[in-house]
């Protein structure tokens, strides 16, 4: 059990706001022990502070990776350097805020491990997001990686799951060139790769259709390729039936991304100073969750104290 450092205290603001929230809760606990109810406006104030504070003073919580997320991290970590990983951006701008952090963090991990990555997308609108991620992650953080040798962007092909049906046996038929019109056979990443079956793993991001499910049914199962997926939080429960046989790992929502980012920071400290959108966006949510749970506890404390008192009075 690792408690510390559960939260990184980046500056005075964080310390003060946490102290205010914690102190306030203690005071309320004291009042609850006297069986005094908390006014709803006090609760409202706590919620407002717990959401606003992490936004004003960036506050991140160390996330413990759940097994479903840890499985993806461990797999990428255990693959030997130079393994071929396919990352598919199967989402549109509407889904992007929730799932793009996952795509980015897995890209970071693959790059730092020295895997060779094939980027593609099944959504026409995913193309722009893919380019954006490549610029943000690969060009900025890994300037020495070379297009074509360390990674390749083969872009979008229309046909939804039909595309998968083809590439599971033949990449070149569907993607004769990459987005820069470099012919398949002159792309270093593809050396020795004929189809998806030759890949070491596939990571697909997107809760829509085609998405994770189609990758499992059309590539993972028939091609016996390890597939992992990242989806929006609301879709995640629908993916669990595929775990662990057909999907070796799942990331659900911002929380999934945050867990992965945490894990990555633990193993590669150099990422501590790099922006981690998952962890950043989880800050206010986690704090608000904890405040709500604290209030549930407070409610029960004052309820039990009240009940005891009533019983004593009856006697």
């Amino acid at each position: 059990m690792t408690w510390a450092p559960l939260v990184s205290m980046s500056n005075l603001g964080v310390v003060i706001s946490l102290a205010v929230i914690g102190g306030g809760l203690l005071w309320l606990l004291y009042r609850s022990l006297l069986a005094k109810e908390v006014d709803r406006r006090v609760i409202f104030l706590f919620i407002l502070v717990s959401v606003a504070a992490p936004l004003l003073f960036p506050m991140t919580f160390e996330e413990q990776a759940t097994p479903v997320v840890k499985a993806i991290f461990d797999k990428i970590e255990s693959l030997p350097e130079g393994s071929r990983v396919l990352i598919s951006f199967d989402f549109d701008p509407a889904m992007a805020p929730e799932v793009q952090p996952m795509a980015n963090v897995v890209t970071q991990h693959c790059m730092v491990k020295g895997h060779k990555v094939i980027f593609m997308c099944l959504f026409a609108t995913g193309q722009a997001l893919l380019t954006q991620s490549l610029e943000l992650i690969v060009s900025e953080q890994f300037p020495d990686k070379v297009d074509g040798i360390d990674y390749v962007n083969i872009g979008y092909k229309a046909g939804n799951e039909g595309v998968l049906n083809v590439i599971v046996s033949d990449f070149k038929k569907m993607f004769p060139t990459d987005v820069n019109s470099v012919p398949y056979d002159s792309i270093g990443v593809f050396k020795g790769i004929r189809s998806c079956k030759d890949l070491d793993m596939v990571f697909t991001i997107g809760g829509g259709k085609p998405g994770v499910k189609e990758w499992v049914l059309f590539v993972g199962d028939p091609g016996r390729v390890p597939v992992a997926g990242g989806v929006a939080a609301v879709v995640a429960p629908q993916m669990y039936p595929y775990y662990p046989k057909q999907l070796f790992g799942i990331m659900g929502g911002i929380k999934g991304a945050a867990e992965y980012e945490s894990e990555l920071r633990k193993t590669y400290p150099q990422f501590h100073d790099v922006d981690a959108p998952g962890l950043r966006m989880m800050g206010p949510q986690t704090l608000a969750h904890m405040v709500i749970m604290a209030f549930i506890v407070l409610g029960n404390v004052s309820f039990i104290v009240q009940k005891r008192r009533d019983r004593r009075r009856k006697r």
Partner: protein
Amino acid sequence: MEHLAVWIAALLTLGIISFLYKDNAWYKLSEAIFVGISAGYWFVVLFWDNVHGKFWTGVFPPEQYDAAGNVITEAPDYMLWVGAALGILMLMRLIPKIGWISRWPLAFIVGSTSGLYLINYFSSNMMRQVQGTIMPLFGMWPTDPTTGETVFQALPTYDIVGNVVILVGVFSGLVYFFFSKEHRGVFGATAKVGIFFLMVTFGASFGYTVMSRMSLLIGRVDFLFGTWLGLIK
């Protein structure tokens, strides 16, 4: 101009949030603006979409030509007049003497809603859910797509327990909803189990939605501190 829009939005945002403290003039103003403008907004949208878009262009289709100049205007849909006639009957309420005639379109609406939903809900809620619950508890014999042979795939223990839980939960939940028997004895005990399942469902769904509710507030706070005040880097 954009600055003004941000300021208006910020003031209105604060007006609504101030309601949490107590009802006040600022909230009342925001509410009055909200009600007036949104009522007008929806009337305009419905008017252009339905009266113009569906009725007018359906009854008097605009002339259209294909690339070669042939007329490909669609035939007018005379059925739409029935809708308009019913709509006009609705307006008869304004004339007290024949106001009762507005019950005809009302009767039409009630009839069509009940007719449409009867089969709809029955098939998607009852039939499909019953079918979804009919499942093997322990595992399946799926056909391997590559070799064509079938292998028994036992489910993990958690899923087997889960399947049994689903069976018990659906069954006892239905017992709870039974109207024609008092909740007593074995029947009552089963109904009690049903209530427990419903409570787990409600508690779990409540807990699950909290996070998405928080993100809405995060959006608003982000707007106030970031876009408006520029405090967030």
